[in-house]
């Protein structure tokens, strides 16, 4: 069933978009985030659909990273950050008092801007998330690691050297290893915070391809400063500027007939 969803919030940030309501996994409601005293995210509301890729674009410093890091509460570890508003994950607000952050982070995986494998072996990197959760059984562990590496399209390249240091891999391989590591704990949502910004075009293409495959199983949110990338891989697209949500729609609509002038200016490369 397809239906028009109206944001309950008045003026300025009203968003309307075609969503299949039953498929909504994450609802961000009137989110505000402050760093010390500066407001980095202002009254943002948007819905993220299951098994789709939702991209967040905008000029640097627009609050995209801050917004995506709010979804698994990674902003918690930065001193002085204050969050107001709600993020509903399957209907439950992750900022509620009785929520255990650790559980949230297990359900919402994250891949960072710069690949950050631990200085351990390839195997131990992927096993890390499982081991800390007390994953039982050596054989099962190995199976799960193999599956995760396959899902991350890395298995064929590393299957003969799982014991090697992860730091010996190339940049693109390291990033796919980080993806495998995130997938191993079986999250429902995977957040990508500019995952290709440090990679060459070939490695970037592989990651993009991979993200396309991953949406079969996972809900994906990706922050990118690369508009072509957003156009290539996302189903929905959010345009953020100076912390405000300017436009949120289906990707092809945003890139063909944006409803706001600023969006058009940005997409056509007039600034940013």
């Amino acid at each position: 069933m397809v239906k028009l969803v109206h944001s309950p919030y008045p003026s300025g940030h009203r968003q309307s978009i075609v969503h299949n309501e039953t498929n909504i996994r994450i609802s961000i409601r009137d989110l505000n985030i402050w760093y010390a005293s500066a407001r980095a995210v202002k009254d943002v509301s948007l819905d993220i659909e299951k098994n789709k890729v939702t991209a967040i674009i905008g000029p640097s410093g627009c609050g995209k990273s801050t917004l995506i890091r709010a979804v698994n509460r990674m902003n918690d570890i930065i001193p002085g950050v204050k969050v107001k508003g709600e993020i509903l994950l399957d209907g439950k607000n992750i900022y509620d008092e009785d929520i255990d952050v650790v559980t949230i982070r297990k359900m919402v995986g994250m891949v960072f801007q710069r690949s950050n494998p631990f200085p351990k072996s390839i195997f131990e990197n992927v096993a890390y998330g499982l081991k800390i959760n007390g994953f039982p059984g050596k054989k099962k562990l190995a199976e799960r690691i193999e599956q995760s590496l396959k899902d991350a399209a890395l298995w064929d390249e590393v299957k003969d050297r799982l014991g090697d240091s992860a730091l010996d891999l190339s940049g693109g391989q390291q990033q796919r290893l980080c993806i495998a590591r995130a997938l191993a704990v079986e999250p429902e949502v995977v957040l990508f915070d500019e995952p290709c910004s440090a990679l060459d075009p070939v490695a970037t293409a592989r990651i993009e391809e991979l993200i396309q495959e991953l949406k079969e199983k996972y809900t994906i949110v990706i922050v990118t400063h690369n508009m072509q990338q957003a156009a290539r891989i996302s189903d929905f697209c959010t345009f953020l500027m100076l912390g405000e949500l300017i436009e949120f729609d289906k990707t092809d609509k945003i890139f063909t007939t944006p409803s706001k002038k600023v969006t058009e200016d940005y997409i056509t490369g007039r600034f940013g």
Partner: protein
Amino acid sequence: MDIRKTKEFIGFGVLKSAAVIVLLALFAILYFVAARGIKVINWEFLTQMPRSGMTAGGILPAILGTFYLTICAICFALPLGVAAAIYLTEYAKQGRLVRIIRIGINNLAGVPSVVFGLFGLAVFVKFCGFGISILSGGLTLGILILPTIIRASEEALMVVPRSFREASLALGATKWQTISKVVLPNAVSGMLTGSILGIGRAAGETAPILFTAVTFYSARLPRSVFSEVQALPYHIYALMTEGTHPEAQIPIAYGAALVLVSLVLGIDLIAIIIRNRFRRRKKW
């Protein structure tokens, strides 16, 4: 123009000679101690008890005593120091408590060593009733080196990149899992360096053990942590100031000084080398 150039030449020359003088001071000390000390050092000197009222024989009890005191100090200070560093770098938020703790650490580092000796005397020797013993001296030295260990451990923890912590937390690890499984293993070599420097400091100190642990002469080797001991630094001091036969004792003091200097500077040198290599090798 020429005057300016001449000025520069002379100025830099003066700076350079200052640095050379400082280096010469180090080499003079090392040279004199080594040149005369080496003459008395042999296997017997290192492995035998003193004889004939400290005018002959070896310095084994002093070497052992310094070893025991240092071990005791590090066993006490290392866990405390590492734990404090973990709190300060991983848990604490900037605020009044942290400021107070930092003031405590900074000022503890500046307390004169003889004052530590008095504290040890009043608290460990008398109040706790440990007497003049390895335990009292070791604990006193432990407090003395605590700031060194905290600072070195903090430095080691801070060089572990934040991205490691983020990666771990994002996988659903708890804070403690992140610290114990990711942060600590990557900080361990830096912490080691810090504790090695602490060991060097503890081994060389005299004033803190003066009234808490040492004795000039004991006929037996120490048997437990409650025994009083001989120690290398105090041995040198006592040979130079309390002896009755300087002509026989000064050579022994040279030997003991060479042993102490090689021990302490050897330890420091190892720490410095490890640290430099570690800094260079860091891959992340």
